[in-house]
């Protein structure tokens, strides 16, 4: 026996070393199925290597900062001017988008949808990689001391990056989405088809589990579906670059990640998510369209004398007809355009309660017509006012009780007849405004 071992000494040692490693591997595999325990040897290894990486990254960043912040300032003024213009344009765009978003929130709240939002993120710097082409992971300089935990989503401004696989006190290992063992719930933006995003041996990313009879085109955006309970729904994942028939009945969809995974420097770790009902627009908030109207150029107001005369006359007529006290609306005489009138009546309780189908004679008829006008005006007035305030004024006037009464007084009772005809002509009469616009103030430019 000894002679056999002596003769095959090298081979015996090889088998022994391999056996020990296989044994160690087996222990790990068995343990990792029970619970996620990080081994001390890993912590030692990471703690040994990461300080050097931190120093190098720090030195590199310092050099870059010195160059970019002190030596490389050519063209900054021009760039600054250009960026300011861009900001102005983006603000206008933001106003429009926020209006759309609020509308979407209102609709979501109507349907009682839950939405998952990013509540808190921790910015982190990439300080290294796993050091192997067969696994695609990175080290970041934030760990459990900074609130980073297992399975937290890691993103950039461009798109998702991966999830936290291991956490150490001051660093964490992030498994990227192009690793072969990763899996991300994803969906196509237009068709809403859902699939699983995986990495390949070549480092590419493919979307699996999409049936071959579905229509998927190159260039389509891929978003996170939220099905993996790691990434919130709707984060950009990438763009479809190639679609080909895959195995069995599924398509092989190649995706170009939205985040440049090979040039990561800074990332965000989503440390806290919130699940909440979408918040609908509250009563006191300023509507985005109003902000837009204020920012856009407008035609100068009418001379104050004309407006004051007209409004004063209107008050004189309306007050007795509706049984309200004219002194309750002291601001009315200074209103000169369509929007303030509409707002004023939009919040008058007696107007809102009168059914639009009322067909009473003279005073009642005026009320019915006015109600319709009052309901429509708040929804349309801002956009109308924002475009051509003076031109829209007559339309609003036709549905306005005060000015209808005014015209009746000026032109005689028969001239009231055209007023009801203008009601159906309003472009968007359908959606009742759940949150009436607050009364316009006197310093309102419109």
């Amino acid at each position, binding site marked *: 026996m000894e002679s056999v071992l002596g003769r095959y000494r*090298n081979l015996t040692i090889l088998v022994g*070393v391999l056996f020990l490693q296989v044994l160690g591997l087996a222990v*790990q595999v068995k343990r990792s199925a029970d619970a996620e325990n990080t081994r001390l040897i890993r912590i030692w290894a990471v703690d040994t*290597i990461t300080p050097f990486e931190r120093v190098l990254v720090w030195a590199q960043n310092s050099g870059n900062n010195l160059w970019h912040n002190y030596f490389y300032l050519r063209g900054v003024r021009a760039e600054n001017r250009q960026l300011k213009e861009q900001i102005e344009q983006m603000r206008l765009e933001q106003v429009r988008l926020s209006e759309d978003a609020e509308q979407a929130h209102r609709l979501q709240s109507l349907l009682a949808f839950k939405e998952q939002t990013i509540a808190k993120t921790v910015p982190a710097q990439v300080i290294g990689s*796993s050091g*192997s082409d067969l*696994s*695609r992971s990175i080290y970041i300089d934030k760990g459990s001391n900074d609130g980073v935990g297992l399975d937290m989503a890691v993103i950039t401004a461009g798109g998702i990056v991966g999830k936290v696989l291991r956490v150490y006190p001051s660093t964490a290992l992030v498994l990227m989405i192009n690793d*072969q063992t990763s899996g991300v719930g994803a969906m196509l933006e237009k068709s809403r088809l859902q699939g699983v995003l995986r990495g390949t041996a070549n480092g590419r990313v493919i979307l699996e589990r999409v049936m071959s009879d579905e229509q998927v085109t190159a260039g389509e955006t891929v978003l996170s579906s939220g099905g993996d309970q790691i990434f919130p729904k709707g984060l950009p994942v990438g763009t479809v670059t190639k679609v080909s028939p895959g195995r069995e009945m599924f398509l092989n969809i190649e995706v170009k990640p939205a985040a440049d995974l090979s040039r990561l420097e800074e990332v965000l770790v989503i440390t806290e998510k919130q699940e909440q009902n979408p918040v609908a627009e509250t009563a006191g908030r300023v509507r985005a369209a109003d902000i837009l109207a204020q920012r856009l150029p407008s035609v100068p107001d009418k001379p104050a004398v004309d407006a004051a005369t007209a409004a004063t006359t209107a008050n004189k007529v309306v007050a007795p007809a509706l049984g309200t006290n004219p002194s309750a609306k002291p601001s009315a005489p200074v209103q000169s355009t369509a929007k303030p009138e509409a707002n004023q009546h939009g919040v008058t309780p007696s107007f809102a309660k009168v059914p639009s189908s009322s067909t009473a004679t003279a005073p009642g008829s005026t009320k019915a017509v006015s109600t319709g006008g009052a309901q429509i005006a708040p929804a349309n007035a801002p956009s109308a006012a924002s475009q051509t305030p003076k031109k829209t004024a007559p339309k609003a006037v036709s549905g306005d009780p005060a000015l209808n009464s005014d015209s009746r007084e000026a032109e005689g009772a028969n001239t009231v007849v055209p007023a009801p005809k203008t009601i159906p002509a309003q472009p968007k009469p359908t959606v009742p405004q759940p949150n009436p616009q607050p009364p316009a103030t006197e310093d309102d430019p419109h």
Partner: protein
Amino acid sequence: MPITYTSGEQIEVYRFSIPVTIGVPLLALFLQTFLPRRIFSIFDLPLLVTIFFAMARRNPISGLLTGAAIGLAQDMLGPYPIGIYGIAKTVVGYGASSLGAKLDVENAGARFLVTLGFYLVHAAVYFTVARGMVNMTLNWSWSRGIVAGLANAALGVGLYFLLDKFKQRT
């Protein structure tokens, strides 16, 4: 120049100083972790260092222990269970040192072919262990494997000539 050694020829066995023995593998691991992934991810510097030390020492035990140590260290820095690289590099270290004792691995052509071959052996062992034992869903890409093997072999030839300067005759 003969490719294989005959009984009448002396085999050159080299040794290295302790700083080189420890520092070069650590440097390889560090560079592998730190260098930008976009360019250097295709290279496996720890593997090249394993092959070099194994071929230079021509001692299978020394080669397999060097491979095991470097592989385990690489495993510790990776996301997968510790031991996959260790096993793969142990086999490579043993094989390279055994081969070094029988073949002339001093010229560039032989080094290129040996490195290419051991890269593929390393990948084969790695995938076998990863899929068979750890049950990982890894897929092998021949195109990627061949390209990576050629790239590593090319880099290895240059690297070996650089490391030759640290050799000490026994």
